[in-house]
């Protein structure tokens, strides 16, 4: 009996370990495959050049540029909003109140809305409603903002990443011990003073890391920008907020599905995927770097 109990235990433990191994292997295979096939094609010309010959040759600079600008705009929009919402939820609101409950429910649901629905929303709300409204009010009906553009794409992505930013920020706020807040409140601090003098200095590292991670998730999303601003091919870089733009993820999708000659595009495609992965993971590394930097500063202080 005792031997049987031991055997079943060992089998069960091994099974769970194997599951972990399979997941790790999946990740390794994907990253390995892309790195090996993508690295050999990578060159300065590829990174800095424009696509040529129906995108079977040339570089991807416009797509890189578009991605970076898109992510920056999105970050500018989402971080203040997300951090403020998290501070409200965690520091201001009375825990257990109806409003907090509803906001949390909304966040959880927002996080579960399919990316493609965000695309529809961006088209319906930002372009057809806000943009067209602006055109009507400021541009005398001429088409300016009532069409796909980088601003709308960035705002759509900002709504998509909002829940992740809030959750990441809240996690950082939660890491600040309750006793610190109690000390400050007991010393007669107002809510804002508690946030400003105690909570934020203690959690800024966590907030930065969390939000950058959240933003890197947004950087790779394609479905929301398909109808809100991304373009197949553009001979110029976006200069105004209502310009269309090329984007890496979308570029990958276009090349995979619309290429006249799949085999000819394949090496370029691999290299593009590689660049997109490097960009997303670079953001991750940046987050880790900032975190360790701030931690070190706090330790020496």
């Amino acid at each position, binding site marked *: 009996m005792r031997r049987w109990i031991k055997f079943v235990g060992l089998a069960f433990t091994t099974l769970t370990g194997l599951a972990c191994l399979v*997941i790790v292997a999946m990740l390794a295979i994907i990253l390995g495959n892309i790195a090996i096939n993508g690295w050999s094609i990578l060159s300065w010309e590829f990174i800095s050049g424009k696509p040529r010959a129906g995108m079977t040759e040339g570089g991807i600079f416009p797509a890189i540029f578009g991605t970076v600008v898109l992510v920056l705009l999105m970050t500018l929009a989402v971080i203040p909003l997300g951090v403020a919402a998290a501070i409200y939820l965690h520091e201001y609101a009375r825990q257990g109140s109806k409003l907090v409950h509803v906001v949390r429910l909304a966040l*959880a649901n927002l996080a*579960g809305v399919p*990316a493609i629905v965000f695309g529809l929303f961006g088209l319906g709300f930002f372009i057809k409603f806000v943009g067209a409204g602006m055109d009507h009010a400021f541009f005398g009906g001429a088409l300016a903002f009532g069409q796909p553009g980088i601003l709308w794409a960035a705002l759509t992505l900002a*709504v998509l990443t909002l829940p992740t930013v809030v959750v990441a920020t809240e996690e950082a706020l939660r890491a600040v011990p309750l006793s610190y807040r109690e000390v400050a409140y007991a010393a007669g601090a107002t*809510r804002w003073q508690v946030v400003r003098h105690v909570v934020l200095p203690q959690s800024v590292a966590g907030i930065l890391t969390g939000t950058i991670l959240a933003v890197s998730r947004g950087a*790779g999303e394609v479905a929301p920008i*398909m109808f809100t601003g991304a373009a197949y091919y553009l001979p110029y870089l976006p200069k105004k907020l209502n310009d269309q733009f090329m984007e890496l993820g979308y570029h990958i999708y276009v090349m995979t599905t619309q290429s006249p000659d799949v085999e000819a595009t394949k090496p370029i495609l691999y290299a593009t995927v590689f660049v997109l992965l490097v960009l997303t993971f670079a953001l991750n590394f940046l987050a880790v770097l900032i975190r360790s930097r701030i931690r070190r500063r706090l330790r020496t202080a």
Partner: protein
Amino acid sequence: MDRPPNERLLLKGKRRIIETLLETAVRSSAFVVIGALVLIFVFVAKEALPLFTSADVHKEVTLWTMVRPQENGEFVWQPVSEKPKYSILPLAVGTLKVTLVALLIAIPLAILAAIFTSEFAPQLLRELIKPVVELLAGIPSVVIGFFALMVVATWLQDAFGFVFRLNAITAGIGLSLAVIPIVYTVAEDALSAVPQAFRDASTALGANQWQTAWRVVLPAAMPGVFAACVLGFGRAFGETMIVLLASGNAAMMSFDPRESFRSFSATIAAELGEVVYGSPHYHVLFFIGAFLFVITFFLNLAGHWYVDRLRARLEGKLKA
């Protein structure tokens, strides 16, 4: 020595303006969150509404014709043709087919891995596995789709000789990669939320680790694990890019996972770009979007409800 009652010091005078301003700003940002969700539904539903109200649209398509067999008794999705056909059943079958395949792979893997991390793995390994899953979650879905299309499809075809290179199995494997992180994370949270006291009690009774995991921790965390499955389902159901790239995009009415298919989300992505603004086709696509929203909304509510239940159970507020 007696200090006078100092009402003036104790009672609120004029509140500091900055304090009030900041509080208002912070509070309104919370309303933006609620507003965003409401606006999404309103603006997607608004564009779907003509399907129910507009006589022009009804000449071409109604809700009824979308689910009923067409003249020849078949179910066909062919919106761009001389006589557009809008049967959504092939899309429904395709979506369910790929979701099922993805969940069959993702749920066992993710839950077993979550058990391993929360119960058996030594600290060092645990800190290794979490970033791996985080990294997996960080891979853009278009990259997973690309990988499924370029690599997985070829491997599977070589190994099993599928007639259709792109099919529900290929797409399902790709999709499972997107589902694993969410199922894993939610399940792992639930397992870790089980108080150490339960594990201590079990260990002190002479149970070994797997008995503790299987008989105490897992039952205690069950609502959370169930929530993980529900949320995973929601994620698989709405995922776009992976399916768009690896499904073959043929709207066939077939339950065979080895055949090509097309899902709801991929249909929107593939067709909205070329559709005429305000046409019946345009409204139908928004209708599908609203449908996706509603389904995932309720799945999320359900998931959330189970997480609450888990909390109630662990706090002892739930009767057996």
